[in-house]
């Protein structure tokens, strides 16, 4: 399952270490985390990380490639 997750702000290398399976790309004042997640449980795991680190979630979308 390929996903893109958009969060507010630019993520430092330190923060990105929390998402080892995802790649990050800055878009203006937002960061797009993208990658393949095993299933819904993996997605919720990433969302919980985002919440725990006090990040602001803007968008989650599934992509096809």
């Amino acid at each position, binding site marked *: 399952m390929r996903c893109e997750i958009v969060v*507010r702000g630019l993520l430092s290398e330190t923060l990105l270490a929390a998402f080892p399976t995802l790649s990050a790309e800055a878009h203006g004042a937002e960061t797009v985390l993208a990658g393949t997640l095993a299933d819904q449980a993996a997605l919720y795991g990433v969302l919980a990380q985002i919440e725990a*680190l006090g990040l602001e979630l803007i968008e989650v979308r599934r992509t096809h490639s």
Partner: protein
Amino acid sequence: MSRTRVGVVDAASPGAPGLVARRELFDVLDRALSGRVTVVSAPPGSGKTFLLRSWLQQAEPGLRVAWVSLDRGESDAQRFWLSLVGSLRDGVGDNSFVEKLTPSPEFDGFALVEHLVSDLDSLDEQVVLVIDDLHELNSADALAQLELLLARLPHALHLVLVTRRDPPLPLGQLRLAGDLTEIRAADLRFTLEEARELLDAAGIQLSEGALATLHERTEGWVAGLRLAAIALAEHPDQEQFVAEFSGTERTVADYLLTEMLDRQPADVRTLLLRTSVLERVNGPLADLLTGGTGSERILQNLEEGNSFVAALDAGRSWFRYHQLFADLLRLLLRRADPGRVDELHQAAARWYADHAEIVDAVRHAHAAGDWPQASRLLAEHMPGLLLDGEGETLRALLAGFPPDAVSADPELASVFGADQITRGSLEGATAYFDLAERQAPRLPDDRRRRLKWTIAYGRLLVARRRGDLDGALDGGWADFLSEPQTPGEIEFGQKFGQKLRALALLNLGIVELWSGQAEAAEEHLEESLELARRLELAYVEVGSLAHLGAAGYIRSPALARGRCEFAIARAEAHGWRSEPIVGIALVTLGAIELWSGNFDTAENWLDRADQALRPEAEPATALLLRYARGLLHCGRGRHEQALREFSAADHAPTLFVPSQVLTLRTRGYLLQTRARLGDTAAARSAYAEMSDEDRRWGEAHAALAVIELAEGNAEAAAEAVAPVLEGTAPVTGASSLVDALLLDAIAQNQLADAQAVAVDIERALEVAEPDGLVLPFVMSGVRDLLERHPRHNTAHAALLTDILDVLGGSTSRRRQGERAPMVDELSDGELRVLRFLPSNLTAPEIGGELYVSPNTVKTHMRHIYAKLGVHRRTEAVDRARELGLVGPSVRRR
């Protein structure tokens, strides 16, 4: 220290820094108290806990508060409720409202909530119950139980739920009724004015412009402003700091935390980074991880000046970091020193293991990926974890192992097996024990020995649940129990050995009791009781007492009654009112009352037993309960209902093999009841299906006699019971002989042999007298024969009167009589001693039963005599009987 935290946590830091008085929100919270529930729901770092803490600090001093903070990922319902009950006891102030609760392997959260609600319903003054970090509650059971509490919320309780996410609880009804107050992220954001106040308190003076920039950049997010305050305090150019911060798009917390850390002295930075792997930290543990000294002082300084470090105890020795702060620190540690993370977890695991905090030790061993260490710790401490009711925690820890770990690790397999038993999967448990046994040769001697007994104990439990009594006793336990303790065991595994010994003795005793070996059962149960008292194992103590009560029944109902009532009193002292382990004591008390003809009292005990028992956990006791209910219906002449209970008791679960005594009695009464209801054909064919061995017994003979009588064959009935009367057919107990005698009396009456009737009745009274058996006379329908029995010519006039009273529907006489006023005058201790007086136990022996000194017993006896106005023990027993304080007519010759 315990892993659960209660109210003191937050009282510990009265001067916690940076508490901004948020008047408007305080007003919202004040007004919320007129409703039932407040929900504070917002992302981490929004200042939820700070808001409540500062509100409570300025609240009127009389406001009573109970505060529970959840641990990360709390998955154990029992631990959640234990900490909640603990904080309520502290918060309510008057302990009589909330009973003390001891962890139990048989915890039932729903029953606890019911009790809690009924206890707190009588509370007048309001108590605010704060549940902080509710989002960490990761137990579906606990959430369902919380939902129950919410549905039945006592009026005096105001519930405050603090969470990162809206809780999965039905709050709609409360919202509609105006009983719900919600405080959300937007409400919690600091205003510009509040931001100024925060910085002022930290001694930071920013220009108006810089302040506005900082407020805008953080969007009033409280954690951001607090981090900024700490970083700014150390920064040489504060205006520049704000300008740089607002010029970057980096996330607020990350940027500010890095800035803040950069400004700390090296030892503080190292301490914060390395101890971030811990859920909570104290000085010695921090010294260990940093290799330094004086960490406690650093932690205390941090707590005073840094709102992200909080003390957990009043003595300020344990601390925990704000979760967001800790999560960011961990990421920084991984980046700065990736090679060290496993090492830190391993060191923490060893420290916790040395300090007997096994759950924390295992968690850190997991985090380090040190699976062998984690499984060895679990195997070594499993008896203690199970006794402390940590079953759910154990399950969560097991889930943390990689899926293939168990196949090559016999100790881990044995723990998985134990977990399967608590889940009720006996097949699963057996498969794991088999696996563990196959892999056992891998282990060194001492660990192999421990594994052997762990597996033996597991198999004992499996066999007990199945009712496979022979299998249960076939574990070679004599070796383990008689084995002298090796120095090695005393040094390192003593607790394991002793706790396992106590558990094994209890379960052996239970199995022996059910296989009819009452003496062996009493011996083992007395040993387990002694060990339980020495090691303070409440669960084993109560279980031993309750089963000792049942075991003593055959010898003396008075002894059984004393022990059962004491078992129930001990259970209640631990807050256990409906744990399955006391079920046997409740059923036994019910049976004692039942056989004495006190049907109403019996029904009360049996109802309580119904609530306590979980049939899958205590199959033998569950069958006994059905059997007792059947008898109760018989005593009241409700044969249809009796038939249902006896049939259910007769159809035991497939894997369960009930004891012969119970089978014979149940089957016997089942046939009798069928015949009394007129279905003699069914009764006859059921009789024909009985095995030759079963038909040898007096219970079968009595059943056949009832069938013959129902069909009008008096002579055949007399023939059927003749071998019982002659003593050639064995009986399972005195009551069965009484049954046979009364059936013969009915038959002889129909055959017009008045003298034989009188002999039978007199002999039945004589056999019934020692145990005060009234029920057989009521069940057999011999009222007219008893009324004709010459009272001047019987040696058992008192019992005869009792029986006729019950038959006449009167329960008022000496049974219920003057009970109430007298009970008040005797203390609980005196009542307990009084229950034992009809037995032939000496004062020191009674002391042994009640675990008090002989002198205390003698003092109680003196007070009892004075209060009852008597001078001797026999007089006291007679008087107590008249008052209905002890069972009627239980006379020993």
